[in-house]
């Protein structure tokens, strides 16, 4: 069974969601619901930490894209945290996330325009 952990910590006006484990077709809907369940209009900044994610594919990227678009509509900033050598970062870099979210740490090369 594919297992992901979703840990949430909140500060004043900000929320940080740490994802761990693996996300694939089996648990994507559950993970997405958990994330959407904690993000509300009350926050001005949302960061998602992908450091401890050991597997994610295009389904996980789709969840992040949808989240980023939702937040953009409400003028909220999305920050995605993933170390440069992590599996998630590899995906973020080839997905062209630069326009929708802040990558942390920043990419070493200028982000490509399209995914």
């Amino acid at each position, binding site marked *: 069974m594919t297992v992901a952990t979703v840990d949430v910590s909140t500060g004043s006006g900000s929320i940080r969601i740490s994802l*761990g484990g693996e996300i694939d077709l089996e648990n994507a809907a559950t993970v997405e619901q958990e994330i959407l369940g904690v993000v509300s209009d009350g926050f001005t900044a949302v960061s998602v930490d992908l450091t401890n994610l050991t597997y994610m594919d*295009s389904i996980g990227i789709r969840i992040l894209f949808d989240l980023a678009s939702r937040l953009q509509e409400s003028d909220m900033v999305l920050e995605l945290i993933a170390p440069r050598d992590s*599996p998630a970062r590899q995906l973020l870099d080839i997905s062209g996330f630069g326009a929708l979210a802040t990558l942390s740490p920043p990419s070493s090369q200028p982000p490509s325009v399209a995914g």
Partner: protein
Amino acid sequence: MSLPDEPGNASTAGDQLRRIDAVTDAALAHLNVEDLLLELLERVQALLEVDTAAVLLLDAAAEYLVATAARGIEAEVRQGVRIPVGKGFAGRIAVEKKPVILKRVDHTTVLNPILQERGIRSLLGVPLLSRAGILGVLHVGTLGARRFTEEDVRLLEIVADRVAFATESRRAEVERTAATVLQRSLLPARLPTVPGLEMTARYVPAELGGVGGDWYDVFGTPSGGLCIVIGDVVGRGFEAAAVMGRLRSAVRAHALYEDDPAEVVGRLSHQVQRFDGHRMVATVQVAMFEPRLARLRVASAGHLAPVLVIPGQPAAVVEVANGPPVGVRNGPRYPVTTVDVPPGALLCFYTDGLVERRGSALDVGVKRLCGALVAGPVESVCASVMAQLIGGEAPGDDVALLVMRRQASAGNGPLELVMPALPGSLKTIRDAMRGWLLAVGAGPRVVVDLLLAVGEACTNVVEHAYRRGGGMVEVYLELQLPDVVATVRDTGRWRPPRGGNRGRGTVFMRKCASDVHIDHGPGGTTVVIRRSLAEAEAR
């Protein structure tokens, strides 16, 4: 609660016998407890010529007597009357454990307002006693003034005896059934499929003294390893099974966040000491396989060490550093023992019911176990261990046995998987790939690339096959130096990827591989993914 030695003067011996017959009637035995109580109360009403009869049973906390069956004062049961032990008429009988006759019923002698409202003048009550102690109270009452005789008391005591026996056996049966069902539901219905590792288990509940709290569990960890848990809760019956359920969930929860078995056991021990209610103690062993299955890390809280059989060598007990059972005290950190598990080796986890025999030392049983183990197919090894150690005897304690064997060395041979095209297969495929890729010397970047590329191809198969209602996905990995070649095949009709997401999947697949070739044949679709073993050379 013996039969009267001499019949009282109030009635003839024949009369006495008739009355006793009425309440010890063998025909009543087939009734369930609820019906039996009502039937007995009705007969008591007629025999003793009383207006009311009621049974109150002690609750689980032994604090209150709860009205359970009644004749003539049915409202007592319907309103769920509770009498504190030690207070009022019934409460006094429960404490004194002997018959009480009340000649005057008012608020100073009786707590239950229903008895007063009903207009009861006289009351006789006897305790319901079992070997274990007080079970409850049986009482009868009359609306007119009545002087209860010694003979009335004796007859009511015989009825009480019967009620106590029926109630106790019923309770024991319910508890035994519930404990067995609970324990069964908490053991894995099916062990996980782990490529490269075959495993099987046996579980036999104790036949004497009620089921215990033995359990085992095997599940994949988020980091691609495998977690094996075996434990034994001290105690018997429903309570032990319930505690086992809590421990099982707790271990699974801690293993989500912790890759260190000692940390998992440590947190468990800490948590157990906060379990409310009865103090409980359990032995627990948590063993974690790393993804390529070559090494196992074991942390043990007072549990028997596993036995390892390396091909060509005799079975040997693994030297595991043991800590105290969980729930005993908060000690220092639990020690971790690392065990090398070479290809073809067999591991045996078990609980003490397998090796412990009355009148013989524990290590005698462990030696017999070692003698019964060989590095062979797990099913036949398990059958042989059970035959040699249990044989035909009725186990006096639960027996749990979990046997697993690493596949004999595949060298750098190909990895071949055929799995149902279901979302749940994706993780199994990834875990098998991780193990195989590490074994062929792939670096982390190569592993990530291939997991992703093959993952996207498999997800595509699953999504399509899933909508069609079934099918298989085949994954084949082979070394063609300097490349790894992965082939993903399904037998369905190719559907072009839908929407932006599946399109993105194909883009990822191509970006992670040196070359991707998709072939849509009449018999199905074949995706061939080629990736160099050199770390930086994906695209």
